């Protein structure tokens, strides 16, 4: 539990009643950051009295930045191609640096050529077959076909990233300049 400690001369810091720590209002102090974490996690429950406006604003900013960092990480993960689908080749026409004279328009024009800007990647095998051994030493192993573990982990990571994106407040998404 925290409270604001204000001296007779007006100076302020945060008093941690649990540990009898006097925490400065300095973002470089690790205990100050822990106070912000407690405000984010517990809200007013961690404070004896009202949370001062400057502390609440600092906690809100920290939470915003954490959510924005998580959102960017998640969207970057989702932007990667789906292993089960592979990736199509993408080409575009780009100037070669050479120019020719167009007699019809009377102007010099770039000579264009097709450039691969994204290589194609084949999808991974949808399933894999493995041998399963039983506890019976004499029994023959049996074949089992399962989903390719690469696809399983890819799907799980994508679902996790999608959950982060879905849980991100609209204000954080709107505040992302990227």
């Amino acid at each position, binding site marked *: 539990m925290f409270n604001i400690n204000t001296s007779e001369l007006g100076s302020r810091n945060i008093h941690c009643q649990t540990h009898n720590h006097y925490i400065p209002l300095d973002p470089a*102090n690790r205990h100050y950051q822990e106070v912000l974490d407690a405000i984010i996690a517990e809200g007013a429950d961690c404070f004896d009295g009202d949370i001062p406006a400057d502390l609440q604003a600092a906690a809100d900013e920290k939470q915003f930045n954490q959510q924005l960092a998580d959102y960017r990480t998640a969207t970057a993960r989702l932007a990667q191609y789906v292993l089960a689908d592979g990736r199509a080749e993408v080409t575009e026409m780009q100037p070669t640096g050479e120019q020719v004279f167009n007699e019809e328009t009377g102007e010099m024009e770039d000579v264009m050529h097709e450039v691969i800007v994204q290589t194609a990647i084949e999808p991974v095998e949808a399933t894999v077959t493995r041998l399963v051994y039983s506890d019976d030493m004499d029994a023959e192993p049996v074949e089992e076909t399962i989903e390719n573990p690469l696809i399983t982990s890819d799907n799980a990571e994508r679902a996790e990233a999608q959950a982060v994106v879905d849980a991100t407040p609209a204000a954080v998404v709107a505040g992302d300049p990227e």
Partner: protein
Amino acid sequence: MTVKVSKPAINVREELADLRKPSGAAGEAMLRADTPQEQFNLIGAGRRNILYNGGFTVSQRGDYTSATAITNNNYYLDRWNMDFQGINAVIENNTADLPNGNTVKTAKIRATGSGTGYMQIRQKIEVESWMQGREVTLSAWVKSNSSYPRFRIEGAAIGGNEDGTQTHSGNGQWEFLTFTTTLADGFSFFHAGVVLWNGSTVAVANNDYMEIAQVQLEVGKVATPFEHRSYGEELAACQRYYEILAAGINNSASNTGNLLGNFSQYSSTLAIGIVPYKVTKRAVPTGIVQGATSFRVYSDGGNSTATAVNVDGDTSLTKARIDLTVSRTVGHALWVRGQGNACLIAVDAEL
């Protein structure tokens, strides 16, 4: 016909003999070096250990010669932070004889129950610009009855958190481990430590332990011999992050003495003192007060005991302002000391 024979200025036989001088790979590397700077780097000369208290000689917070229960994310031996999950453990600051012939202080972490998790002793390091993107080598003597202990750098260039591939064999003997990696660019701090895990949480049995000594982190891909520093130098370095201002007469946490400083009575119930630190702090520190009602205030041939102690918000990188709730004559000078064994005032600017 006259044949003139002249003796060359150099003795060819001696030159050939010189070429046959035995030299190892390191010697050859020194000979191939183009500049003294290159030779300097090859032998790792100069100040090398980036870590503080890598020899575990400084322990301002307490005397851990007997096992002390660990709280996660707390500091015990100076600069070393405990990072635990799922396991209860104790820490000891022992003395041991290493295979290299050195008698040294060690940090021993021992599980006090079984569980699934990990236990790590690590140091959070302020990154200076010259460290960014540098190849570094972490080395230490490690003793364990588990085959899981390995190095870990949090803030490495590849993958952020990187574990060493070399692990202790778990044979209960001292083994010298090393780990070379490259630090990331753009970090303001990173962690270096020894962790008992295998890339994820592991089953830890009661009394599983890891004991480490002579931990060194240095630039380059080679672990050089441990850089010994004097106690005074190491203590001063550690006090950038933690310093005891005064402790009780017999408080085992410190031999700093019990005198807090000179104060003056500001009002009928408030005495104020400015206590300078020995070392400028990394950031404005947290004031830690224990046994607040054990500080005694002396003036006018008498004394009173403070009923409260408050490290004030005016506290800065270089000085603490301490407020004592005590009744003495307004305007008089006072001096203050810690009276009870358990009392302590310290400042903490750890990362």
